[in-house]
C-alpha cells in the first residue's frame, strides 16, 4: 500500500489564497513529466462537415436540417455552456480548433498521447439504422483526416453505431489497421452492453487488440429519470450509467467470452468502486447459480479487464485517496483524463491531492495508460 510522502505532514491542499497566488502557474510550468490524457474531445464545427464523407443518400438529411443531437438536455447555468470559458475559439465550438488545443493542452501539459473521444455516438442518436451507420463511417473519415493525421500525439476512438452491432463490427474491421486507433468508443445505451446482441462489438475489438471505451452522456437518465437540476444529474447520472454497464459486462460474462478484452470507463467517476466491487462479490456469493458461467470473483474480472479515467475527480485529502486505492485493491486502475475542452476540465498539475508519492502520480498520469493502451 502507498503511504503519504514523509515530508508531507499536512494533508490540506494549498488553500490559502496567498499561497495559491504564489504557486507556479500551471500553464507556465516547464519540464513537466510526460502525460497521457485519456479523454480529449474533438468537435465538429457543424454536422455539415460530414457532408463530404457521406454518400449522396444522406445529403438530403443534412439539407433538410438534420444535426446531431446535442448530447445534453439540460439548460446550462455555466458561463460558456459545456465549455471552459477560455477554450471557446473564434469560430466553432470548443474542441473544434486544433491550434487552440495544442496551445492549451498538448504543449503546456507535455501530452505525449491524447486519446480523442469525440462526443459523437450514433448508437444513441435515434436515427435510421442505415443513417447511423453512415454517420459513424463519415465521422471516422473526418477524424482521420482532420485530427489523427494532423498530429501524431492524437490517438483515435473508432466511432460506431452501437445500435447495429453487426455494422459496428464491420466499421471496426475497416478502421483497425490505422495505427492511431486505440479503441472503439460506445456512448450511453438504455440496455446493458453485456447482452449477447452487443457481442460482435466486443469480439471484433478483442480480435484487433483494441480497447472498448464507454463514455456516458446526459442523454441517459438516472434511476429517478431526469432529475430537476443539472447539479442533481451530474451527481447521479455518470456514476449510475457506468455502474450499470460495469455490472452488466461482468455478470453477463463478457470477460469470460473475451479473455483478452480491455475496457475503459470514461468520465463517470471511480470513488464508487469499493462499494460496487464489494456489492458485486457479495451478490455473486449468494447468487452464483444464476451466473454459473463466471469462474472468478467479480472484483477480479474488473481489476484484470477494466480501467477508469479520473476526471471529473472529487476533491479529497491524500489519505482518503490512498485508502480508496487500497479498498479497490489496485494502483493501476486509474488513468488520468482532462476532458478538455469542457468546463469540468481537470488540470493535471493540480487535480490530484497534494502529498501523494511521486511514483503513484506518475502511474496515474502516465504509466497506467501506457501499459493499458500499449502506447
Amino acid at each position, binding site marked *: 500500500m502507498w503511504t503519504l510522502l514523509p515530508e508531507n505532514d499536512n494533508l*490540506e491542499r*494549498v*488553500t*490559502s*489564497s*496567498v499561497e*495559491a*497566488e504564489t*504557486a507556479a*502557474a*500551471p*500553464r507556465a510550468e516547464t519540464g513537466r513529466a510526460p502525460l497521457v490524457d485519456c479523454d480529449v474531445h474533438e468537435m465538429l464545427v457543424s454536422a455539415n462537415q460530414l457532408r463530404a464523407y457521406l454518400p449522396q443518400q444522406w445529403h438530403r438529411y443534412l439539407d433538410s436540417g438534420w444535426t446531431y443531437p446535442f448530447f445534453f438536455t439540460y439548460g446550462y*447555468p*455555466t*458561463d*460558456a455552456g459545456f465549455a*471552459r*470559458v*477560455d477554450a471557446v475559439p473564434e469560430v466553432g465550438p470548443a474542441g473544434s480548433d486544433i491550434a487552440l488545443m495544442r496551445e492549451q493542452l498538448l504543449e503546456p501539459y507535455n501530452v505525449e498521447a491524447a486519446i480523442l473521444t469525440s462526443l459523437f455516438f450514433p448508437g444513441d442518436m435515434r436515427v435510421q439504422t442505415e443513417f447511423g451507420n453512415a454517420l459513424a463511417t463519415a465521422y471516422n473519415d473526418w477524424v482521420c483526416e482532420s485530427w489523427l493525421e494532423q498530429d501524431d500525439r492524437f490517438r483515435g476512438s473508432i466511432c460506431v453505431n452501437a445500435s447495429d452491432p453487426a455494422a459496428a463490427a464491420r466499421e471496426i474491421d475497416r478502421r483497425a489497421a490505422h495505427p492511431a486507433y486505440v479503441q472503439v468508443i460506445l456512448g450511453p445505451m438504455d440496455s446493458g452492453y453485456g447482452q449477447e446482441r452487443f457481442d460482435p462489438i466486443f469480439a471484433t475489438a478483442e480480435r484487433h487488440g483494441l480497447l472498448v471505451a464507454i463514455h456516458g452522456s446526459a442523454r441517459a437518465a438516472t434511476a429517478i429519470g431526469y432529475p430537476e437540476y443539472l447539479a442533481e444529474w451530474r451527481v447521479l447520472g455518470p456514476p449510475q450509467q457506468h455502474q450499470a454497464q460495469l455490472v452488466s459486462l461482468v455478470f453477463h460474462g463478457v470477460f469470460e467470452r473475451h479473455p483478452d478484452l480491455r475496457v475503459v470507463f470514461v468520465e463517470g467517476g471511480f470513488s464508487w468502486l469499493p462499494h460496487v466491487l464489494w456489492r458485486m462479490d457479495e451478490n455473486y456469493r449468494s447468487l452464483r447459480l444464476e451466473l454459473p458461467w463466471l469462474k472468478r470473483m467479480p472484483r477480479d474480472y474488473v481489476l484484470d479487464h477494466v480501467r477508469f479515467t479520473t476526471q471529473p475527480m472529487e*476533491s479529497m485529502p491524500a489519505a482518503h485517496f490512498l485508502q480508496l486505492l487500497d479498498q479497490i485493491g489496485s494502483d493501476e486502475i486509474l488513468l488520468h483524463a482532462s476532458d478538455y475542452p469542457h*468546463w*469540468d*476540465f*481537470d*488540470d493535471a*498539475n*493540480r*487535480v490530484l491531492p497534494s502529498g501523494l508519492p511521486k511514483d503513484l502520480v506518475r502511474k496515474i498520469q502516465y504509466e497506467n495508460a501506457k501499459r493499458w493502451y500499449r502506447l
Partner: protein
Amino acid sequence: MSVAERSVVCQVDDLGPGERRVVQAGRRPVILCRSASGELYAVGTVCPHQGADLCKGRFSGTAVDDGVGHYQWGLDGEVIRCPWHQWEFDVKTGRSLFGEDDERIATYEVTVEGSDILVAHAPTKRDRIS
C-alpha cells in the same frame, strides 16, 4: 517590501459600474472590479481550486437565495466566476459563495486619491478561519 506599498493602476474614469480590468499592482496582476453600486475592489487572479486564470472568468452578478424554487438575481458586479469549474467568489471578501472559508481568492486594498486608483502590492492579511 513595505506592507503599505501600493501603486496607481488606473484612473477612476477608466472603470464604470459592473466593469473590471486586469491591472498590475507591483509584481502581481490583480483584477480591479467596480461593483454595480460603484465600489472598487481588487482580487487575485488565481483560482484556489485548480489554478485557473480568473482573468478569463466572468464578472457579474449571480443567483441569490430567495427561497426554495425561486430565483433572484443579485450581487451585481460583486462576483467573479472561475472560467473552468464555475466556482464563484465574492470580490468584496475573496470568499467563495459556497461558503467553505478556506477556499478563497486574495483581496487587495484599493484606495482613491484624486482621480487615481491605487492598489496595494500585498494581499490583505486576514485570520485563518478553521
